[in-house]
């Protein structure tokens, strides 16, 4: 279910639709494509109303999560499908179609694969064929539904970089759906965060990370802890001590402060916002995560460089170096 919102996609940009499963991001993509229909509302392509336009005439390129390749057709036939489906008067000649298929195969670096069948290809190769097939019709907008969802981690990473390259080369307006924050933040020019059918925020990866518009966006983009705090005189106080966090306009009195694990720093208990004892610590890839148990029994996770080790049972103090407070 989608609630009312307005989303503008700029020509030539790569926009990531990010949200947890069930947030409505795929529905939105399908509405843009003309595969699903909004109860009300309009879809505009560069000022033209496309709402009533059947999917066949929308000129979108849709890449499906499971590729949806035609299994009984060769790779070349798959890519040429959209061109062959055109009315005779608008259909390019055979030689022209063959040339375009060849160009696209070059673009996706699968030049020798024209006569293979989808069942003979790997997942990553199928994904690239699906993309070439969508690009062949020269769509006004390219739509990708969880493009890397069905692939394993390494292939995902390679394809991500490759998709970015293709986009930079073609300048194709592209919208892709993902539930993976890293993927969205790495690939997109701008990210649109959706939750429960609401558009929470649209912005560049830096904007959504530095200035999340809501607690939902903040939580979805990474780990955080939530603390009871007090807004007073434009500052946010925790346990009576002022923090560097400024209170947003209109927020006065008791509030909640959201803090990322790396915004906490170990200090002497005397000058700390929070105190507690270390319960456990784990090291991973040059960083360590330390679980600190506060006097009331709640856990705080701190992220730090893999320097000084913190043994279980050690009393520690934590200073808050940053955080987020949301109005309302």
């Amino acid at each position, binding site marked *: 279910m*989608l609630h*009312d*919102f*307005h*989303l*503008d*996609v*700029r*020509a030539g940009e790569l926009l990531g639709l990010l949200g947890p499963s069930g947030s409505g991001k795929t529905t*939105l993509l399908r*509405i*843009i494509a*003309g*595969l699903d*229909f*909004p*109860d*009300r*509302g*309009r*879809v*505009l*392509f*560069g*000022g033209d109303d496309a*709402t*009533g336009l*059947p*999917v066949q005439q929308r000129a979108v390129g849709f890449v499906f999560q499971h590729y949806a390749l035609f299994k009984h057709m060769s790779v070349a036939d798959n890519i040429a499908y959209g061109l062959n489906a055109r009315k005779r008067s608008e259909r390019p000649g055979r030689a022209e179609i063959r040339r375009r298929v060849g160009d696209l195969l070059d673009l996706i670096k699968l030049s020798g694969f024209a006569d293979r069948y989808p069942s003979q290809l790997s997942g990553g190769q199928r994904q690239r064929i699906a993309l070439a097939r969508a690009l062949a019709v020269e769509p*006004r*907008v390219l739509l990708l539904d969880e493009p890397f969802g069905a692939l394993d981690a390494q292939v995902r990473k390679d394809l991500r970089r490759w998709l970015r390259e293709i986009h930079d080369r073609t300048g194709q*307006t592209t919208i892709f759906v993902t539930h993976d924050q890293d993927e969205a933040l790495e690939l997109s020019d701008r990210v649109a965060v959706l939750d429960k059918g609401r558009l929470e925020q649209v912005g560049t990866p830096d904007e959504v990370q530095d200035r999340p518009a809501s607690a939902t966006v903040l939580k979805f983009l990474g780990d955080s802890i939530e603390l009871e705090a007090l807004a007073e005189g434009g500052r946010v106080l925790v346990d009576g001590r002022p923090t560097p966090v400024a209170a947003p306009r209109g927020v006065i009195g008791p509030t909640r402060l959201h803090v990322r694990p790396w915004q906490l720093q170990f200090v002497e208990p005397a000058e700390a916002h929070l105190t507690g004892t270390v319960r456990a610590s784990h090291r991973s890839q040059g960083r360590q995560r330390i679980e600190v148990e506060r006097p009331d029994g709640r856990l705080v996770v701190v992220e730090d460089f893999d320097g000084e080790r913190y043994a279980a049972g050690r009393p520690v103090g934590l200073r808050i170096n940053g955080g987020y407070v949301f109005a309302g």
Partner: protein
Amino acid sequence: MSEGLALSRAAAARPRSVTSEGRAVRWLLTGIAILFLALFLVLPLLTVFAQALSRGWAAYFEAFHEPDAQAAIRLTLTVAAISVPFNLVFGVAAAWAIAKFEFPGKSVLITLIDLPFSVSPVVSGMIYVLVFGSQGLFGAFFIEHGIQIIFAVPGIVLATIFVTFPFIARELIPLMQEQGTAEEEAALTLGASGWHAFRTVTLPNIRWGLLYSVLLCNARAMGEFGAVSVVSGHIRGLTNTLPLHVEILYNEYNFVGAFAVASLLAGLALVTLVIKSVLEWRYAGDLAAGARH
């Protein structure tokens, strides 16, 4: 160029789903399908009951009072009572050996078990004539010992077992293969004997599939005509099953009698179909996928 998505109050005309045909085509195809099925399947079924009752209920019930009809009912029940349990034991044993163990030639074995499905009913009966008939392979031996198989009840039972041979095994094999051996192995590690594991673990897992296949096996056993016709000899009151009795009455132009007896078999078919459908709707997960006939 800018692609915007704005949701405003203006209600948009809703185009039809892209993965379906237009309403007119849908109606046309549905109409053709239902008309075709009504004409080819439902009408013949209704005819059976309509013809059976064409002279009223008294004439209908009279058909069953005939001693020959009663003998036919008895024989049909007897034949089913022997052949269904036989195939049940065979089916479970074959499915256990094939589904729970790995051995070479397994697919050949499955194909051989399936073989009776692809043999014409008439040929199914005929092969027993070739073995046990007076000029058959062992015919002389049995005649010498005064044992009559062809044109007698044993031949009918054998032919019925043959045509229904694959029914139960064929449902159970894929079902038990799908279930694997983990649960039985768990039971064995907990100290159960093999028989105990079968009774308490395997049997509950296959009970719906078992019921389903026994049902279909029984329907075919009671309704088989071609194979039984060849080995029966059509001796009234002795070797006539219900389907054969139907044939005799029909050929004597006793249409009401023929259709009355036929209505009994049609009723059995309907009950079978209803229970089968209910099993398919409610316990689809406990039946072998795709094995629908």
